[in-house]
């Protein structure tokens, strides 16, 4: 118990609202609110989600389809498409020419996993990864699809994954938020937005806290110019005494909570900059994550921050790296995006492992949907585009409780449909259920009553994909 709180608490316990006082303090310490959790022993204590926003092409990364090269330029057969809907972007094209990947694939590691030449660093860690090649989703446009991935629903207003975890498990570090969001700073076409890490109908304290590059990594964290830590300390001490007066006057336990939150804010002013200041990292760490990792706002820097936050007990760190929406100019786009992300993604897994953190940290890599096997726009010898494709794409998981060095699910030889949709398909709800399972949460029992109904991250669906679990 914080020394500051002690006298107040003793005073308060002499009062009559013992139960409420204890509850308020529980809140302050970030304890979970959702009943007895975890439901069973967790494999993962925390999650780092490397969200690749825009929909990375599975066909240029992990899902090797030589048939597309053999049939390059031929029409997508109706027997493969089966009348499934397309977006309005390529749906009005007069032809849908199959497009083979321009990039070479090779098998790597003991697991012999296929990885394209665009991801040399990821290729070196395939034996740590569990590839899910049978991901699928409902939505075909970015906004509904990314909202679905991040909140389990296409419509707005539902809590995000991290908010659910904050609500369910609370924070393991009372000086840091339970749910931190890191967005790569770069100009993009496909925007991101606070809804993706919002708290929906959960109490707003569960929303993700975006860590920003710059002097005030959390909004309003820095004291105003000219207000020294000492001056601030005096203010807080005076506020504590004045609030104490008010507490005696009003007898309202909420006052106690407010006092404690002000103190937590004060501690965050130290703990957040400490966590986000990478200057104490040795050079070899920067070398591991790549040269970008020294530059705040880059994906590599954010990967490094993610490790530091994981070390400090943050439950859920979600990175967003936008720019994967390659409707046209895909080869050049993929070269760029893979270069921005490959080394740091792999480095994060390596770094967690050597620090012993990978045993109880789950790492997830993936986007909101995949891309079509046919070219959007003109297919030429060295250029093509791919439209959104919700029916199959690849995600990988690593770390706590995951079957390393394996691949789950497969697509047909055209890379258009799942080979075994009934048995192997992993829907977004299934991924969420599995993620919660690894954290010791039975997904059907993490609920919140809103509008008279118990809501879940997995809505009324979701299957724990045991095949992914070690």
């Amino acid at each position: 118990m914080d020394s500051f709180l002690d006298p107040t608490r003793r005073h308060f316990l002499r009062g009559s609202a013992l139960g409420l006082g204890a509850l308020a303090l529980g809140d302050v310490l970030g304890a979970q609110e959702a009943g007895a959790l975890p439901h069973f022993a967790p494999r993962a204590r925390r999650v780092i989600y490397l969200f690749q926003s825009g929909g990375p092409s599975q066909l240029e990364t992990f899902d090797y389809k030589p048939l597309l090269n053999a049939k390059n330029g031929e029409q997508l057969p109706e027997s493969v498409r089966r009348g499934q809907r397309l977006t309005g972007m390529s749906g009005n094209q007069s032809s849908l020419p199959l497009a083979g990947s321009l990039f070479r694939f090779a098998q790597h590691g003991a697991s012999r996993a296929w990885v394209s030449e665009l991801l040399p660093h990821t290729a070196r860690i395939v034996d740590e990864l569990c590839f899910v090649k049978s991901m699928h989703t409902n939505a075909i446009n970015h906004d509904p699809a990314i909202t679905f991935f991040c909140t389990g629903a296409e419509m707005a207003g539902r809590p995000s994954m991290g908010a659910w975890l904050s609500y369910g498990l609370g924070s393991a570090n009372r000086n840091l938020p339970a749910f931190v969001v890191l967005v790569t700073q770069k100009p993009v076409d496909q925007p991101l937005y606070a809804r993706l890490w919002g708290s929906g109908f959960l109490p707003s304290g569960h929303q993700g806290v975006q860590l920003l590059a710059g002097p005030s990594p959390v909004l309003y964290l820095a004291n105003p110019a000219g207000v020294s830590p000492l001056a601030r300390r005096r203010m807080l001490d005076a506020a504590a005494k004045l609030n104490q007066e008010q507490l005696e006057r009003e007898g309202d336990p909420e006052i106690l909570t407010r006092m404690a939150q002000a103190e937590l804010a004060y501690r965050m002013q130290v703990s957040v900059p400490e966590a986000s200041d990478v200057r104490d990292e040795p050079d070899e760490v920067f070398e591991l994550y790549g040269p970008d990792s020294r530059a705040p706002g880059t994906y590599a820097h954010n990967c490094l921050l993610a490790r530091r936050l994981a070390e400090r007990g943050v439950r859920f760190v979600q990175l967003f790296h936008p720019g994967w929406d390659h409707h046209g100019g895909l080869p050049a786009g993929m070269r760029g995006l893979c270069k921005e992300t490959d080394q740091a993604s792999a480095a994060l897994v390596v770094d967690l492992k050597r620090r012993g953190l990978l045993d109880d940290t789950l790492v997830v890599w993936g986007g909101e949907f995949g891309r079509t096997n046919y070219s959007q726009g003109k297919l030429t010898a060295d250029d093509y585009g791919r439209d959104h494709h919700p029916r199959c794409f690849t995600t990988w998981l690593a770390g706590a409780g995951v079957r390393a060095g394996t691949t789950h699910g497969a697509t047909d030889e055209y890379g258009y449909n799942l080979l075994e949709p009934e048995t192997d398909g992993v829907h977004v709800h299934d991924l969420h259920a599995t993620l919660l399972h690894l954290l010791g949460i039975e997904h059907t029992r993490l609920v919140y009553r809103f509008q008279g109904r118990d809501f879940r991250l997995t809505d009324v669906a979701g299957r724990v994909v045991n095949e992914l679990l070690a």
Partner: protein
Amino acid sequence: MAQRVGHRVEFDLRDENESAGILGGVLPGLVLFLGALATPQGPPDFQREVRPILAEHCFACHGPDEGQRKAKLRLDTFAGATAEREGGAALVPGRAAESALLARVASDDPEECMPPPKSGKARLTEAEQATLARWIAAGARYDVHWAFVAPQKAPLPVVERAAWCRDELDRYVLARIEAAGLAPSAEAEPALLLRRVTLDLTGLPPTLMELDEFLEEHARDPQGAYRRALERLLASPHFGERVASDWLDLARYADTYGYQSDVYRRVWPWRDWVIDAFNRNLAYDQFVTWQLAGDLVADATREQKLATAFNRLHRQTNEGGSVEAEFRAEYVADRVNTFGTAFLGLTLECARCHDHKYDPLATREYYALSAFFDRGDECGLYSHFTDATPTPTLALPTEEQELASATARGALERLEAELAALPEARTSEFERWLASAPRPPAPQPVARYAFDALADNHFENALDPAHPGEIYEGPQLVPGHSGNALRFSGDNGALLPGAGEFAHWQPFAFSLWLRVPERKERAVILRRSRAWTDAGSQGYQLLLEEGCLSFALIHFWPGDAIAIRTRGEFPLGRWVHVAASYDGSARAAGLALYVEGVRAPWSVVRDHLVKPITGGDPGPLALAERFRDTGLAGGEIDELSVFARALSDFDVAQLAAAPEAAPSFGELARAAQRAHYFLAVDPAAAELRTRLTAARHELADALAAVPEIMTMADDAPARATYVLRRGRYDDPDRAHPLEAGTPNALPPLPDGVPHDRLALARWLTDGRHPLTARVAVNRFWQMLFGRGLVETAENFGVQGTPPANPELLDALAVDFVAGGWDVKALLTRIVTSATYRQGSRTTPALAEHDPANQLLARYPARRLSAEQVRDQALAASGLLCTTIGGPSVKPWQPPGLWSISAAGDYVPDEGEARHRRSLYTFWKRTVPPPNLTLFDAARREVCVARRGSTNTPQQALVLLNDPQFVEAAGALALRVLTEAQDEDERLTRVFRRLTGRAPNASELVELRALDLDEREGFVVAPTDAAALLTSTGLALPEGALAADWAALTAVASTVLSLDASVTLR
């Protein structure tokens, strides 16, 4: 019924021998407290005790949802639960031991027990089982859910402390307080009372002068002082701003569309209407009726139509490639859901995909309701390339604009009348000309393309060699109707720069030869338009649609456009002459289509064009392709001419005929000869037409300048309504068309009127409606007490929280209707009550017996709303700009937040816009202002009837570090520095402005100590004081010491963060 049951509570509690089983509706804590009074033998109340158990544990599988019902057993109706079944009925009234339900819920056998373990539902407690047993033993009576029965006023309960009551409502409150053996709290101290009611009714704190006057007056005449304060507050224009804040949450009001692009939209005039409506106390039934159906009211005014923007404030998307029908279905659903939450307090949205699991709302009833909201001529996507307002729209001209367009319209109408009269007046000229046996020449085009040869991807424009046409993506030159023609792939096209750049006030026409290989569901022949849905089709276009030819001029499809479509299918596989003509009138009657030289019978598809068709950078006239549209795959085009005038039938006949088969003018019918003469020959008509075009131009410019807003109108061609299975836009149950209607569990729609939104509004605001008034008074109660009498203000259904005081809720609802839905009267009544005026202190007795304050034996202290927190700081500091209404403003926010949104940077406003009230802060849905959302402001993505109230560390950071709050603290310090010389007086003024009350002696000691310590610090570190001053942008008056100011600023900042400031007590 609820009120009767509740009423019995009062009397039961007076007589300890009576059963108190009916106490179950009161919170568990209270039940425990009253345990000694209760005897367990009496029949439990179905509404309060039994149904909640059944709903929680059973209804998900055995409730109203037919689709999910297990074992064909339903337990939400008496008939269902008592039906004969193999193994015995679930319920046997009067015989608990024989009722299968009880056996199943008591069973330990995992195969037998209910709810089944895998359902995740909790087992029934022994107490719950006992309740069910007693209920069955007493006959298992089912009652209709209280909220579906019209409210009635219960007799006033008898109370001991009748003198405490100021209003009938106090009696209802007091009865429960006394029944719990408690007493109400004394009235709050006057200063806090004035602060409370001022913030509650205006959202702003009282000024020092208002406080002083009130205190002085209160000492003499407490009642009069309070009454006069209320009069002042209700007359304040800030009243409307305060009440509007809550309404904006329900209306999901925002300055941007939402979804990912989240572009600006101009909807603030609706927000200003709401403020004004509250300020002039528009009766609530009218307030609701106008917003739902103001456009359908007889002789609807502009204001009434404006109110209907309420239904268009949902999110909208323009994301490329989105399916229009999918999102239009979303918009309609959002309107229905909002209608349910805001007016009915029902979770209609549950019934979108399946029958409601708890309330009697079937999916077909959901879609029957949706039919009311699905009659507007709208598109599921707004325009990416233009700033067209999505239709239907309402023009909001200024007075000058109104005058300008009226003048232009008058001039135009006079010229049109003149032109119409001309043939009559100049009959003799026509006859004379006809007598000369004229052979009128073919019409003269402004551009002509033969498509006979390509050079470097260009082809000749015979009339303007400087502007050749250009192919792109490789259309082929093939043998054509005459010489060569262009054949298109569907993905390629041709651009015709310099030709065809027409506005909708100009006449123009096209003639071409077209060969189409097969029936086209949709194909672009010719267009001047940037894109299809991505530009709202703005421009003009000649298409093949469902096999037929169509011609349209469009500002925003479908609501601001004129369009015709041929009734016959277009001939396939051969060369066919096509002409399209437009007379510049902005009417569908001015469009004409010709196939093979003669008018093709057509239907008018749209006839409402107001705004320009040339926005959004349409580029040149182009053939056979358009961005994200379907091209003319396999089609061929030849011999295209562009005309800068309309064509007559004779013109087209000439253009379509082979040279050797030219039609003879003399053989034409008289009417056709006459039409051609006055279109193409008569000099007076030509002169008049020139003036007419100028007048059309003038009117078009006048109308183009007028801003619009999205509103409701039932102006679309009739749409059939179906259940969308599982809510999917592309899976309608076409076998069962639905009529617009209301749910069966609620009263029927009025007879003898069309079932439109106006009928729906009349139905809703009928005084006998069980929900409307209850839901409304509950929200106003929530506004004043922080929590509604029904805590779940958004859900009055079976799973909602039962009312804490049903008699009170019903009395308020009944009186609200009887009093003419008078909002100010309702609020006055509540804030005048003794209940509202109590002090907020939580005594040990209250903390023990009613910790959640269900009984209201004290005022329920609560944190100020997000808007109030900021507005109070601005008002106390004197920075607040009190301008009402207008476009939203952008006060300072941390830089860079919009960078994730691809929306460009957030550029903070300068000047007083920085200090406007928070309800005017620009609301960007995807990146809302953080200092408001951190204080639980609703996100405005969907309708919200109740905000959370959290207490987080980030709130402390905002209060102490947000430059807006630091500036306010600095300005407040500056203010007291100049107002008073005495330091205690300065400190007291800071404290009073933010907390309403004066600091007590020990608080003043603390403030003094802080002030002194901070001053010492700033004296030692003068650069800190200077840095603080610079950061606030404030300037000190001559002679003032920076350290004095900085210390006071630190004090003000500290006080800003105190419970006493951020909490309403």
